[in-house]
């Protein structure tokens, strides 16, 4: 077993990014993700990288655009209100086909909201916070180790498909410490012949651009991009199943909510209720197929979320509303207890306990 160290989710994420070859970080302070910026400020100068505290979230994401256009692995991180500000730039990243990692350590909203953990930016991340036809690959870790693993993966997916990837964390996963091993196999290399690095007389000029005033052409661009999205949906969907084989009640939960749900599933099993869980690891692409298959076996689903109910829509779509889907939710920075979820499981099971 590799040597494990105890690290905060946010700091482990930052170190993993550097290990993945990200030497350009642009950000702005906001709770509860500031440790990422602080870590980068300490580490980047020591590894010959760039840490720049931008004048705004908007400037930060545009600096990311600049470094990504120049062919470098680059990232920014923020928390919910800051991601709203970055949304313009995220749409441009998608429109320009630029790879980058965007981290959202979610807190409660809307507006300035609070600073406690939340998952209420699900819609923003999955349905597109910015304008236009585009998708982000959205990765949702539920532990510090997975935060590290998905950071490595996020940079690879971004480069492989030339698109922005969002790592959707939350205040709990970002702030908690867990044992983590920071081992990364050799970084893969990707063709970046499209990057703006100067022609040096060896090629014609490169243009990084999202503008297209001819609608028939813009439609073709969008169709081509969606073909890529379809391929990603086929090949890159990730999820974890927990006790689903014989499950009658299936929880769907991601991130911190899946940790609490696991306790509830175990408690339910002790009471003799056949509970299980599907945990989406990629929120886009969403694990539609496994949910559809599971729907054939289970009686009901429970969507457990730290929002007023956002992912539940996608669960219903995935199973084509073939089974009842109940919501178990807390919002505004509150986290449900395992008992709250267990009560919901009992209720859905018929309330016999």
């Amino acid at each position, binding site marked *: 077993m590799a040597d494990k160290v105890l690290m905060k989710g946010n700091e482990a994420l930052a170190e993993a990014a550097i290990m993945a070859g990200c030497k350009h970080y642009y950000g702005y302070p906001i709770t509860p993700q500031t440790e990422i910026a602080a870590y980068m400020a300490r580490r980047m100068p020591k590894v010959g990288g760039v840490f720049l505290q931008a004048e705004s979230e908007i400037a930060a994401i545009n600096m*990311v655009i600049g470094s990504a256009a120049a062919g470098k692995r680059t990232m920014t991180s923020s928390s919910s209100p800051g991601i709203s500000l970055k949304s313009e730039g995220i749409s441009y990243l998608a429109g320009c086909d630029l790879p980058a990692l965007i981290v959202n350590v979610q807190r409660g909203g809307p507006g300035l909201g609070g600073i406690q953990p939340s998952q209420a930016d699900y819609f923003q991340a999955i349905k597109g916070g910015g304008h236009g036809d585009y998708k982000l690959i959205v990765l949702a870790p539920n532990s510090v180790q997975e935060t590290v693993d998905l950071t490595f993966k996020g940079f690879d997916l971004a480069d492989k498909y030339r698109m922005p990837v969002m790592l959707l964390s939350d205040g709990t996963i970002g702030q908690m410490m867990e044992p983590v091993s920071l081992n990364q196999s050799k970084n893969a290399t990707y063709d970046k012949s499209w990057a703006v690095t100067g022609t040096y007389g060896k090629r014609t000029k490169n243009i990084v651009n999202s503008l297209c005033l001819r609608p028939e052409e813009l439609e073709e661009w969008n169709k081509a991009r969606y073909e890529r999205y379809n391929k990603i949906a086929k090949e890159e969907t990730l999820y974890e199943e927990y006790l689903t084989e014989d499950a009658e009640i299936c929880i769907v939960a991601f991130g911190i909510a899946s940790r609490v749900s696991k306790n509830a599933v175990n408690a339910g099993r002790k009471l003799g209720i056949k509970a299980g869980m599907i945990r989406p690891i990629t929120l886009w692409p969403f694990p539609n197929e496994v949910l559809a298959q599971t729907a054939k076996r289970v009686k009901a689903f429970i969507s457990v979320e730290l929002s007023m109910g956002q992912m539940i829509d996608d669960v219903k779509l995935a199973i084509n509303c073939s089974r009842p889907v109940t919501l178990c939710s807390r919002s505004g920075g509150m986290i449900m207890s395992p008992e709250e979820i267990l009560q919901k499981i009992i209720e859905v099971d018929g309330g016999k306990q």
Partner: protein
Amino acid sequence: MIVFEKPKSLVDMPMHYCPGCTHGIIHRLVAEAIDELGIQHKTIGIASVGCSVFAYNYFDCDMVQAAHGRAPAVATGVKRANPENIVFTYQGDGDLASIGTAETVHAAARNENITIIFVNNAIYGMTGGQMAPTSLPGQVTQTSPYGRDTTQVGFPVKMCEMLSKVDGATYLERVAVNNVRNVRNAKKAIKKAFQNQVEGKGFSLIEVLSTCPTNWGKNPLDSLKWQEDNMTPYYPLGVYKDSTKEEK
């Protein structure tokens, strides 16, 4: 003997600019400066949003098209990624002095080693003639149909004057291209702004007073005269800051 030719750093294609618009002249001056410094192969331009959005087609070097107002931030990202590249932005007044004020001021504050070409024609051209941050008091535009009322919408923003108080900024000059003498001065200023970057001296911004015959509702000659008579007095030409001199 060739006495006149197209600069190498411009692509040989028709530009979309309106007749009499001075963008063409300014493009040419930028391209000449790049050619003369021998930096075309390592130059990266950042096009902004506005009439000059298609600059990415016109300049023959690597180009990035930025969101409205964000060109200095994008330029920062490109420059920090590859400091050996020469990075310039080409921005209009709405882009640089309104929606992108913060990006402009902070790039200057950081003394970011980039070159900014700021084209000020006191109006929004691409969207069809609305009030700009630099529209003059009393100036009639589509969104100030009774003339710019400074009691309601405030005063024009004088970028060179404002940035001259920013410690980080290295070189700030306002020029015009309404006559031969001014064009020559503009060329010198633009070249110096690129030269500064080549020498690692930091943030240079050249504000070029320009015209918009179409949206001003004037013919090209009258436009040049209007600029001279109205804009130049409000936006005096000259060097507003040159810390390359102070160093000596």
